[in-house]
């Protein structure tokens, strides 16, 4: 007999994310992923000036603000055939790399590490042994016995006070935690270091985008003027600061994040065989080096993989009517032309129609509609998006930079390439692409400096900014690779106004409900066969879902709308 457990909210992407899982003999037999809130930015955008859309979509989500704005200006530029100057491309790329560095480090330490690192156990570590261990895996200077002993005292006091605060919802002491106390202490210390570090790297967004959060973007380029000698513009001093931030970020990733990731992974190699899921991967590609339209020159190449076969990378065309389509068989929407069809986003509709049970309820009606997320498919296939997809596509295409980092990690951990198709593989891929973007960020920066020194300070092409220059009707698609996966916006401009605007976000690919044929999406598929040793503390579910980096933090602080303390987990009879 199976038991259904509910984890809600597991995170709050597009509102809340809820997981219902049926457990039999200690393993997940069936799983359902549901987005329980809706925002409908699409309706807000209708009838507005396309040049303003980036500012609205930047609000779609707190973590991804900058990347949605980038996607938005790209789709408008695509529709109106605007080509941005090389400097604007470089600045956008530098901001993109900075966001990856920030996002991936914060995800690893603050959203995911505590699924592997037992904070309370870290208090039992021997600081001297911890120091020796830390020095054996990294050159990072903060690694003395005194440093680790201080951290231990600080957190010990915190724990003793009974106010665990940020650590209050962990499953501390769970038997699935396998790290020695010393590794736990290193993880905890770097959790705190990463908190302080992360506020530095985002300054790059404030410098180029004028402010952070919600930096400024501009259709046609970037709004930041460069003049090496002018104090009110991006000058030599600010550029030097950007270079320093990128270098410091690279050091942190190489000397802290990666050594920690590898040390932790080495104790959890069994997770290289858990949580694989679909085996289908989708990447739109990003980091253009010769304009958005030349996808062959992207640093992150696009492509699709089916059935874990990395030897064959399929081309992806976001403009084709029969490639990316959204279905609503199990989603609380209705389509004017019938609910069974799939719609390409240029023809997309976003009419909500809730038909689920009246809250409060125990179960969703998972045989009917059960989510506010639509179900996107690529040529009918369910696809996983995100770091693992990107790393596999780059690797499958034989790109040297990808092969180098992947082969080294596999060798260091002594695991076969098949270990990548897993929860551990997802978490490792995020680290590997962080090292790539840290290096690329510096490369873009050096190119930007070289351009400026050669006298090119152009930052925007405003020749088509005036709506009078636009065609009566225009369609565009802007895609990017958000840190958590492929993201695209499709726009339909009629008479200078937005007639339709559709976003398909990475977590929709990963967290959507089943399709019309009953096929699962990535979260649901990845949970099948995941072991759950204690139904009241489903740490293993969190590991797999968090490995995808659900868009919003699975904040471990959970509360329901009535303010009652909620149990994140409810165990229900079959």
């Amino acid at each position, binding site marked *: 007999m199976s038991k259904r457990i509910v984890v809600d909210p597991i995170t709050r992407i597009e509102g809340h994310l809820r997981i219902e899982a049926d457990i039999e003999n200690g393993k997940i037999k069936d799983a359902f992923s549901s987005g329980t809130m809706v*925002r409908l930015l699409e309706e807000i955008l209708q009838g507005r000036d396309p040049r303003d859309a980036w500012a609205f979509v930047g609000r779609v989500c*707190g973590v991804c603000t900058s990347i949605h704005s980038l996607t938005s200006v790209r789709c408008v530029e695509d529709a109106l055939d605007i080509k941005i100057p090389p400097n604007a491309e470089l600045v956008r790329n530098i901001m993109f790399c900075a966001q990856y560095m920030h996002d991936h480090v914060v995800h690893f330490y*603050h959203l995911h590490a505590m699924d592997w690192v037992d904070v309370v156990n870290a208090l039992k570590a021997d600081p001297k042994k911890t120091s020796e261990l830390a020095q054996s895996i990294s050159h990072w200077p903060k690694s003395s016995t005194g440093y680790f002993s201080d951290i231990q005292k*600080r957190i010990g006091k915190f724990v003793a006070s009974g106010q665990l605060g940020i650590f209050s919802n962990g499953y501390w002491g769970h038997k699935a935690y396998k790290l020695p106390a010393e590794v736990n202490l290193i993880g905890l210390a770097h959790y705190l270091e990463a908190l302080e570090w992360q506020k530095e790297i985002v300054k790059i967004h404030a410098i180029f985008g004028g402010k952070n959060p919600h930096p400024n973007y501009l259709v046609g380029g970037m709004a930041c003027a460069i003049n090496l000698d002018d104090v009110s513009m991006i000058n030599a001093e600010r550029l030097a600061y950007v270079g320093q931030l990128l270098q410091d970020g690279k050091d942190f990733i190489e000397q802290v994040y990666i050594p920690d990731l590898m040390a932790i992974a080495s104790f959890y190699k069994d997770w290289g065989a858990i949580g694989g899921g679909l085996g289908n991967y989708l990447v739109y590609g990003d980091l253009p080096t010769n304009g958005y339209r030349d996808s062959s020159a992207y640093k992150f190449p696009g492509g699709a993989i089916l059935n874990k076969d990395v030897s064959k990378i399929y081309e992806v065309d976001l403009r084709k009517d029969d490639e990316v389509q959204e279905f609503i068989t199990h989603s609380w929407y209705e389509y004017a032309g019938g609910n069974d069809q799939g719609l390409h986003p240029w023809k997309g509709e976003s009419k909500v129609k809730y038909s689920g049970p009246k809250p409060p309820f125990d179960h969703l009606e998972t045989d009917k509609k059960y989510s506010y997320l639509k179900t996107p498919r690529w040529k009918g296939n369910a696809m996983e998006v995100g770091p693992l997809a990107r790393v596999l596509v780059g690797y499958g295409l034989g790109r040297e930079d990808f092969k180098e980092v992947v082969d080294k990690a596999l060798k260091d951990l002594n695991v076969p390439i098949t270990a990548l198709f897993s929860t551990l593989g997802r978490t490792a891929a995020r680290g590997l692409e962080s090292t790539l973007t840290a290096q690329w960020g510096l490369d873009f920066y050096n190119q930007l400096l070289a351009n400026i020194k050669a006298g090119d300070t152009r930052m925007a092409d405003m020749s088509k900014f005036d709506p009078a220059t636009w065609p009566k009707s225009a369609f565009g698609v802007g895609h990017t690779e958000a840190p958590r996966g492929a993201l695209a916006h499709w726009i339909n401009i009629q008479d200078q106004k937005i007639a339709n605007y559709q976003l398909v976000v990475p977590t929709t690919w990963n967290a959507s409900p089943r399709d019309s044929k009953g096929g699962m999406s990535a979260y649901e598929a990845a949970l099948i066969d995941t072991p759950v040793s204690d139904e009241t503390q489903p740490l293993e579910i969190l590991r797999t879902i968090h490995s995808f980096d659900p868009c919003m933090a699975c904040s471990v602080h959970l509360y329901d709308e009535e303010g009652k303390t909620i149990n994140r987990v409810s165990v229900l009879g079959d």
Partner: protein
Amino acid sequence: MGDEGIGVHVAKQLENELLPAGVDVLDGGTGGFYLLEYFEIYKHVILVDATLDGNTPGTIRLIKPRFASDFPPAMSTHDIGLKDLVSALQVLGKMPEIDLFVVSIHSIQQQGIELTPAIAGVVPDIINKIRCLVALDESIFTEPTIENMIAID
């Protein structure tokens, strides 16, 4: 979006008003970790956010959160939200003085970007209250080098 964006509306209005030197206004977006630095460099932070606490829409409460558990339920749809930020500041030992205005709203499911009349009507009241708090904080005048901030969320 909608009433949930009360903070953004208050921030926009405050940006157009004359405030004492040393007081800055920030639209903090959804209040993630990237705001950490502001909480470290400012001595006093005044926050405005929406909450779904079941009170009559438009109810304004002022609370002084010291721990994440002091926050009201269902602050707007944040990722790593203010609660996590406050917890982080606490574990880092860097908590500034925080005043939090919470405004009860009816729903976060509404569409659109404008405030409903019930919520729009309390914006002037919040602004007055913020002005009072700023005026009462003598450190703003006695220690002009330390900036104070009104972070809006």
